[in-house]
């Protein structure tokens, strides 16, 4: 965790993530915003790797950068006459206030709290050789009900999305 590579990677990737999320807010064109959103997701996947969450980093790229971004682009394409200018509403100033306040509070809490809640010795970090076996065990062990419910949810979302956008057959 404390070799220069990981430290550098963390700052680089968090810079990329934060700046490209800001770009999602700032750019004028909606499709450009999608591109920057994908960049933010990829940066986030890199940060997951520095937390040695290898499976979730790859899943993040697969689901967000590969699937959700395509959905977003398709949604932009399927609404051709709508504005593509990524304009702001009247809520910008309250939004900035809320977001700034939130970020400040979280940062203060994160720094000020003593996170050593469970361990007696010094708070280090846990190292996992591989996460995927443990995740699999947990998913099909204690969380099997949630796992099944999630699969039902996905099926419902799939069918729901199809039913929603299906064109009515004109008789």
């Amino acid at each position: 965790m404390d070799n220069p590579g990981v430290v550098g990677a963390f700052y680089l990737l968090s810079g990329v993530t934060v700046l490209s999320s800001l770009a999602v807010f700032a750019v004028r064109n909606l499709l450009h915003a999608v591109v920057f959103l994908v960049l933010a997701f990829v940066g986030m996947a890199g940060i997951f790797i520095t937390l040695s969450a290898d499976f979730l980093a790859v899943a993040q790229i697969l689901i967000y950068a590969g699937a959700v971004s395509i959905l977003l682009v398709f949604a932009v394409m399927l609404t051709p006459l709508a504005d593509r200018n990524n304009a702001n509403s009247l809520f910008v100033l309250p939004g900035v206030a809320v977001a700034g306040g939130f970020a400040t509070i979280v940062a203060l809490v994160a720094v000020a709290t003593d996170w050593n809640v469970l361990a007696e010795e010094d708070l280090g970090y846990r190292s996992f050789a591989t996460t995927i076996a443990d995740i699999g065990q947990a998913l099909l062990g204690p969380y099997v009900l949630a796992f099944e419910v999630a699969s039902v949810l996905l099926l419902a979302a799939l069918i729901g999305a199809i039913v929603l956008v299906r064109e009515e057959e004109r008789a």
Partner: protein
Amino acid sequence: MTFEELKPFIVPGLPHYLALSGQVFAIGILIALSKRNAIAVLMGVELMLNATNLAFLAFTRFVPQAQGTPALAGHVFVVFILTVAAAEAAVALAMAVLVYRRRETVDLDRLNLLRW
């Protein structure tokens, strides 16, 4: 100041990750609150979900395992969040397309049929 004293500030630990997560979440809030286009609002929501994932993973990494819980409970939560995010994106975008078909706009300021 020696390097020893600076080290906890430089080497990323739990506070660093949580602050980053808070920042990304805040940007997500900003986008979700201030954008007109429904699709852009959805992008903000996705960013917020992502920030939550980061917080979960950081806690899993830096906080020791509690007695009687699975080794990677935080990771399992993130798996579920990813699942729900994917489902939510699919349905929300389908709804955006549907709204567009009915009203020829996805501008949230103009979707005010239920106002007053």
